[in-house]
């Protein structure tokens, strides 16, 4: 529609021929454009789309035979070997099995790699790697137990290594003084752990998380000072050595380190089973119901979270005592460094790198830190700086360590998606995609969309010509463009409309607006007065035009 063409067009009232015309006889007006153009423009999908959406990658196995289910179970429980769902392929109709939970597969693979590790270590680094592997097993077991305390029981205890150390020292001392054999050391250690755990569980009942963390940090120091300064525990030699051991001196060195490696691997597996038994069963589920700051709600639901926490704490302390006894049985004793501030720091580094609260996080963190600390020995003190930098960056950039990356990334991606979507979606009467899901009456959505299309179209019809036409004759037959605009105005809801208020018997008139609520009187729009009714009609028209152009 070019401007010149619009000006050329003059509308003749068809009713003049019959002499029954109301309104203008003729008026300059505009050609009415085809609404299809606006429709196509508005309804086109302008957002770039990619072909692949988000879907979860499942492992799907072809099926053997016709069955889509299996009955392999973990003896003697009724649990299935893997969480598998049988289905038929939509396209080929072949029976197949989909693994819904892949974590057991990964666990089995990783543990298999650790178990077979000694056969693949390079010969030049065999000794170092075997020693590091044995240390890794024991520290991973300790950290898995610590994860139970910090993650599952949410007791922020930093005295884990103090429990291990105390049990280790007492069992070593008993073994040296009274000749207690090695197979009793872990059991005595468990008893020590029970006593120690029970003693430090009492403040845990009363204190909040971080008060308890600071207290246990002090307790750790207390143990260090006590054991290093006491006469019985060998104050001078840097540790207590000479306990009974299961690693026979007469064996070949390789056999000795193999025995140590697999013994600590067995300890790690036992710790993982403990984790599974506590975290994945009743106690863990109770505590997942009572996360921090929602304890009151959980208690109101009948969850005795304090008892569950203390139970876990004490069971874990027994396990840690066992590990302490095991440690002294494996290494013939224990060093004071287990109580050091550095040890607590390295332990926290292990947890923080992997992610607090997850067994896999504890194991990965231990692997990284033990590798840096024990294998790269030639780097000197730089090692600890590297560990510190890793720990700091894990804490600064990751919400929950390495194994929290996926969740954090998904949350970030969803946030960004929402931002992009809202930045490119068009407003102006249409509902946003987020809003649309909340509106139950879908007719409402279609109406809004239609209304927006119609307003877009009518905005193109509003020109000085039709305004002049309306001004000369507000009532009666009009040109098509003006008639379309007026029809739209007449169809609007009551609260969008205006009315005229006659101030005296013959005028003047004022414009009022309806409230749209029953019982609420119309309000005066402005103070302008119109002398005649036609002027007032035109005033209302201009106001509606204004509202249309604004929307």
């Amino acid at each position: 529609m070019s401007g010149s063409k619009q000006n050329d067009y003059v509308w003749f009232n068809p009713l003049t021929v019959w002499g029954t015309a109301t309104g203008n006889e003729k008026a300059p007006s505009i050609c009415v454009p085809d609404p299809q153009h606006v429709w196509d423009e508005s309804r086109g999908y302008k957002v770039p789309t990619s072909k692949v959406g988000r879907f979860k990658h499942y492992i799907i196995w072809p099926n053997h035979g016709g069955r889509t289910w299996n009955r392999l179970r973990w003896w003697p429980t009724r649990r299935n070997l893997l969480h598998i769902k049988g289905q038929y392929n939509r396209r080929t109709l072949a029976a197949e099995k989909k693994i819904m939970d892949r974590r057991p597969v990964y666990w089995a693979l990783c543990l298999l790699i650790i178990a077979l590790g000694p056969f693949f270590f390079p010969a030049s680094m065999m000794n170092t790697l075997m020693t590091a592997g044995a240390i890794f097993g024991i520290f991973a077991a300790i950290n898995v137990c610590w994860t139970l305390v910090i993650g599952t029981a949410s007791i922020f205890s930093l005295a884990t290594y103090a429990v291990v150390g105390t049990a280790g020292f007492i069992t070593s001392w008993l073994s040296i003084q009274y000749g207690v054999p090695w197979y009793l050391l872990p059991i005595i250690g468990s008893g020590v752990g029970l006593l120690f755990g029970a003693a430090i569980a009492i403040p845990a009942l009363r204190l909040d998380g971080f008060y308890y963390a600071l207290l246990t940090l002090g307790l750790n120091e207390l143990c260090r000072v006590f054991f290093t300064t006491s006469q019985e525990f060998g104050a001078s030699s840097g540790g207590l050595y000479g306990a009974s051991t299961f690693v026979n001196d007469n064996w070949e060195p390789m056999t000795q380190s193999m025995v140590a490696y697999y013994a600590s691997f067995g300890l790690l597996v036992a710790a993982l089973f403990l984790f599974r038994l506590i975290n994945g069963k009743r106690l863990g589920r109770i505590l997942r119901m009572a996360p921090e700051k929602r304890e009151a709600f959980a208690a109101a639901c009948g969850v005795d979270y304090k008892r569950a926490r203390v139970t876990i704490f004490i069971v874990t302390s027994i396990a840690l005592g066992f590990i302490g006894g095991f440690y002294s049985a494996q290494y013939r004793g224990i060093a004071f460094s287990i109580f050091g501030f550095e040890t607590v720091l390295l332990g926290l580094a292990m947890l923080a790198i992997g992610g607090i609260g997850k067994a896999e996080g504890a194991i990965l963190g231990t692997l990284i830190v033990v590798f840096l600390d024990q294998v790269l020995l030639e780097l000197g003190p730089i090692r600890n700086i590297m560990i510190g930098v890793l720990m700091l960056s894990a804490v600064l950039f990751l919400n929950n360590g390495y194994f929290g990356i996926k969740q954090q990334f998904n949350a970030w991606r969803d946030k960004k998606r929402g931002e992009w979507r809202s930045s490119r979606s068009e407003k102006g009467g249409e509902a946003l995609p987020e809003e649309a899901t909340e509106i139950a009456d879908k007719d409402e959505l279609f109406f809004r969309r239609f209304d927006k299309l119609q307003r877009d179209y009518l905005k193109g019809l509003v020109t000085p010509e039709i305004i002049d036409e309306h001004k000369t004759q507000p009532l009666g037959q009009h040109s098509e463009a003006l008639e379309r605009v007026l029809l739209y105005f007449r169809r609007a809801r009551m609260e969008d409309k205006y009315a005229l208020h006659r101030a005296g018997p013959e005028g003047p008139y004022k414009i009022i607006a309806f409230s749209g609520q029953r019982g609420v009187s119309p309000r005066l729009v402005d103070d302008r007065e119109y002398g005649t009714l036609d002027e007032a009609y035109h005033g209302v028209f201009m106001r509606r035009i204004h509202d249309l152009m604004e929307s």
Partner: protein
Amino acid sequence: MDLTFVVTNAIIVACIYGLIAVAVSITWSSLGLINLAYGFIFTFAGYGAWMVAEYLTENPFLVAASGIVAGALGGVIVCLTVFIPLHDKPNFTTRGMIATLAISLIGSQAFLIYFGPRPKALPEFFGYWRIEFLGTTLTSDKIGIVFCSILMLLVVVFWMRGSRRGLEIRAMMMNPQAASIVGIGIRSTGIYVMAVTGAMAGLAAILLSQTYYLSPFGGVVPLIKGVSIALLGGLGSVQGAVIAAILLGLVEALTNKFLGGQYVLMTQFLVIIAVLIVRPRGISGLLDKAREQ
């Protein structure tokens, strides 16, 4: 070995560790950060003063001032690396604590590499005079320690009471969200708080170096003592920290006198645990007014 001697020793110990305890307390209550990097700041300040004494001047005032400035600088470093990136992230308290521990791990190793494991000594600041007081001989360093730490504490307390920045910090202690709504910058306040508390730790380092040597891992014991005092006094309360410092100093001195030095930590922790079981938020910590974060 009479009661006055015991009490004076208690006060001296209380003064030094009390400074760190007040620093821990202020940081926790205004920023919500459990700063376990005060050990690092302590050592940082000590080595800063030592560098000045070694390479620039032996003037005691300048050396002490450089130690305090180095402490404030250490505090700002911790603030920039931990508080400012983390303060609006999820799990801030846990992550902040672990991050400050990471800084102390990195810091102590860096000091070990740069300065070597051998301990260093700072010059004597207070001369070699002594006075008789109530039948006890007080040496110059003891009087100096008590005087300096009390002065520092008073300066900090009056600055927090009287100045605009102090008002901002106290507003953050009451309600951090409301404080940020009325226009108090959380980050800028964080820098002030960490600079001031760092300066306190720096002064503690200077004062303690009159008795002990500087070493890369020397910050751990003052940190743990300071944290224990802050815990006993109630996190967030300056007067609680002062009371707790005097109480623990007394316990230390009495244990030294009647039981022997190796039982000091034991009796102290028994006292702390006993008090915390009765009052879980410390001596003067109120259960409801404590910062929830």
